[in-house]
């Protein structure tokens, strides 16, 4: 009973204190695509990802309703850091949907703008106050069309801002200053101080953006002893929320100085460190859900790293490059550069590639279940082997079509009045002079189970089989490589089929033997593959990249660093006259893929299990000249 009453009361006061408008809510998910385009058009950085911001505590005075209900402590504001733009998850400030949407666009606009004088971005409350006005002025100056929208927003916002609020004199003058600054930005230079922080201003950037550590990312310390066990995730685990949590990285407490000199009744709550093995897969999915929920409930997370991994150690060792007798190193210590976007320099001889071939000594056979599809695809792709043929009855052509001409003349002389038919013939060759290098991602993430039967690596294996089967009769040159990496010194390049080799049992056995391992240092792999492909003396050279996710590696090769390096590698390949195309099964890829590969340089396969059948068809479409 008590619990029930509590729940009802909670509902009641929460509803009373909640001033948002449920019916007119606009969520970020609804408009993130156009918003992203708008953001980039107004000068925002192309490489930034848009994510939902975490609610942050604002420390402003709350009105009595909020205090009773225990709500209103947090507010979602916007800010950006190195590789993300944070925007509120949803906006329901105004009763009018259009206004809520306008607010999103306004936030995107102020975040896209960089101040003409960047040093003006001062810290602290006063700095924020001046900065916010300044950015408003500059944005409105640059895009005068936003003026009316801004005015509408301010008008509606000021009306709603102070409902239910009671201010003392100091607070009132602070409020007045803010209202004045919103209406006539740039007019007030000093914010009057008061006991509390001012109420958050939803139209302005975040006063002190939290420094965020992405919990899903591994340690940024390069080469620490902690062996980052990669996470072979479970099927359907993809419901991860596109949200980041407030967190800090702290030292691991040793648990020896934990004496609390307090009477316990005075402590309302306390937090403690729990040793949870979060790096590895949780066996129970419910467990994971609970952990997610707990993390959501906590105000702040402190994460420590004790560099001890349980169980993972064993697995890791098993995955070490088994220098088995079957593996023949073709080329080792190939040094390649890497692009550092922060310093904007190319780091010479930064990565080392080892190219090996895995010969099992057996003749592999095409798996039984693929035979039928292979046959069908071979048939379909036969059209790629076109010969030079005379096209007759053309309206234009290099030669006269004598048959047509004789017929025509015959008819004319015999007294028929006929219209002049198409009398030319043309020798048309759709000659293909093409070589294609298929570069597949063998990183450990491909160990993920897609369904109960197949992992991503199995899908990739099938794809490689069907790709080779379909291409072997077309006369196109092709080669297949796989890659994975562990730090910059160890990029493994697995040769499955070179351009010179024939597709035969040995190649099949190599494809059969592929297995996932390590990470995805894509830039180096692309550079090395580009070298191989460049040596091919054909008119068209196509580099096809098959992957399941973002570039990442143990060290700082993740997030934007990896994306920028890969983008650079693609640009280099293009400038060598190679064509590049990426096929990915990462459905989150829409965010970073255009940045790396260009608008038309990639495709996302939504249903990975269709990849094997789709790959050859995609190849055919890519390489067929529509004319």
């Amino acid at each position: 009973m008590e619990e029930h009453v509590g729940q009802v009361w909670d509902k009641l006061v929460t509803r009373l204190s909640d001033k948002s408008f449920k019916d007119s809510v606009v969520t970020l998910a609804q408009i993130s695509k156009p918003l992203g385009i708008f953001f980039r058009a107004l000068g925002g950085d192309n490489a930034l990802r848009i994510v939902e911001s975490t609610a942050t505590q604002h420390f402003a005075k709350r009105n009595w309703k909020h205090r009773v209900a225990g709500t209103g402590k947090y507010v979602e504001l916007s800010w950006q850091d190195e590789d993300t733009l944070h925007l509120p998850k949803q906006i329901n400030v105004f009763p009018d949907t259009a206004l809520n949407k306008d607010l999103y666009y306004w936030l995107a606009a102020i975040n896209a703008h960089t101040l003409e004088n960047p040093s003006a971005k001062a810290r602290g409350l006063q700095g924020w106050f001046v900065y916010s006005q300044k950015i408003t002025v500059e944005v409105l100056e640059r895009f005068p069309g936003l003026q009316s929208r801004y005015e509408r927003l301010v008008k509606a916002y000021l009306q709603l801002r102070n409902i239910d609020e009671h201010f003392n004199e100091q607070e009132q003058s602070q409020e007045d200053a803010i209202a004045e600054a919103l209406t006539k930005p740039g007019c007030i230079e000093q914010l009057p101080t008061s006991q509390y922080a001012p109420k958050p201003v939803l139209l302005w950037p975040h006063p002190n953006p939290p420094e965020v550590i992405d919990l899903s990312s591994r340690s940024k310390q390069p080469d620490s002893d902690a062996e980052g066990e990669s996470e072979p995730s479970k099927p359907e685990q993809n419901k991860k929320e596109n949200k980041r949590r407030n967190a800090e990285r702290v030292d691991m407490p040793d648990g020896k100085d934990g004496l609390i000199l307090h009477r316990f009744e005075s402590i309302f709550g306390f937090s403690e460190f729990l040793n949870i093995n979060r790096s590895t897969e949780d066996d129970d999915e419910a467990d994971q859900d609970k952990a997610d929920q707990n993390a959501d409930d906590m105000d702040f997370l402190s994460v420590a790293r004790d560099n001890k991994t349980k169980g993972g150690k064993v697995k890791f060792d098993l995955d070490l490059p088994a220098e088995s007798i079957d593996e023949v190193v073709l080329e080792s210590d190939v040094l390649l550069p890497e692009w550092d976007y922060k310093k904007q320099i190319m780091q010479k001889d930064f990565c080392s590639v080892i190219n090996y071939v895995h010969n099992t000594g057996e003749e592999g056979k095409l798996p039984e279940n693929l035979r039928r599809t292979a046959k069908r695809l071979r048939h379909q792709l036969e059209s790629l082997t076109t010969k030079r043929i005379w096209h007759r009855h053309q309206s234009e052509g290099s030669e006269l079509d004598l048959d047509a001409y004789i017929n025509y003349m015959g008819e004319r002389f015999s007294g028929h009045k006929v219209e002049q038919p198409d009398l030319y013939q043309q020798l048309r060759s759709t000659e293909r002079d093409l070589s294609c290098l298929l570069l597949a991602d063998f990183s450990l993430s491909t160990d993920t189970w897609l369904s109960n039967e197949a992992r991503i690596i199995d899908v990739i294996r099938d794809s490689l089989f069907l790709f080779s089967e379909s291409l072997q009769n077309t006369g196109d040159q092709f080669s297949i490589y796989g890659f994975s990496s562990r730090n910059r010194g160890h990029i493994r390049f697995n040769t499955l089929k070179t351009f010179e080799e024939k597709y035969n049992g040995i190649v099949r056995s190599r494809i059969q033997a592929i297995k996932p391992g390590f990470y995805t240092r894509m830039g180096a792999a692309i550079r090395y593959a580009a070298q191989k492909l460049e040596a091919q003396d054909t008119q068209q050279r196509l580099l096809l990249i098959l992957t399941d996710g973002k570039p990442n590696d143990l060290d700082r090769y993740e997030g934007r660093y990896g994306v920028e390096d890969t983008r650079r590698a693609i640009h280099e390949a293009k400038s060598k006259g190679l064509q590049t195309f990426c096929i990915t099964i990462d459905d989150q890829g829409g965010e970073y893929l255009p940045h790396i590969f260009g608008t038309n340089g990639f495709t996302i396969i939504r249903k990975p299990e269709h990849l094997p059948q789709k790959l050859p068809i995609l190849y055919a479409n890519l390489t067929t000249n529509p004319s």
Partner: protein
Amino acid sequence: MSTDTQTIEMPFYSPQGNEESLFEHAYTNQLPVLLKGPTGSGKTRFISHMAAKLNVPLHTVSCHDDLTASDLVGRYLIGDGQTVWNDGPLTCAVRDGGICYLDEVVEARKDTTVVIHPLTDDRRILPIDRTGETLHAPDNFMLVVSYNPGYQSMMKGLKPSTRQRFISMSFNYLKPSQEQEVIEQETGIDAHMAKKLVAMANALRQLKDHDLEEGASTRLLVYTARLINSGFDPVEACLAGLIEPLSDEEDVVSALMEVVYASFGK
């Protein structure tokens, strides 16, 4: 294919750099020229301007993917009871002298390079197999080709062996102030509006390669400015003249319209 021989008054052209003098030097030294740059950045306008300036006839051939060597050189047509040889635009230009401008040359079929190559080296000849003739280009003949490195389809590109036969010039979008001037000059629109349009176009150009295949060209800006100048609603004019031509995807169009509203208000 359009072939026109025009020596009318000099079309307006606002130079980006030293391209005029470079072109003149190339002309006096009988060197072929390759113009590259995004669509609507003034390549074609530049050529008509230079042809008028040098006072030579201009033969323009817009290349398309069905354009063959015989379209350029010429072919036998069937006349009344006999076949008649008919010169193609390239042959015409070589016979008459002047600038022969092959627009978007990558679009043409591969066999066209065969007839272009002997004209681009020091031989400057055009062999015509069909008639057994070999034409020698006159002193005032100049071959100019253009292409847009941005949007080549996967299978189209200019072969290095072709590229390396030309003096190359790059065209790009103009600086904002200069572009504004061009738009005012071309359309007579007022400076304020021209400035807004240019700012917006530059915003849209930021989206190239990421969200759009190609940024808004100066040509599109001129069209839009003309619409506005003749009294059409600015926002609608931008939709028709700038946004719709850039994308077919509905949500991209609506996002781009937000950029328009950011300049023109809503």
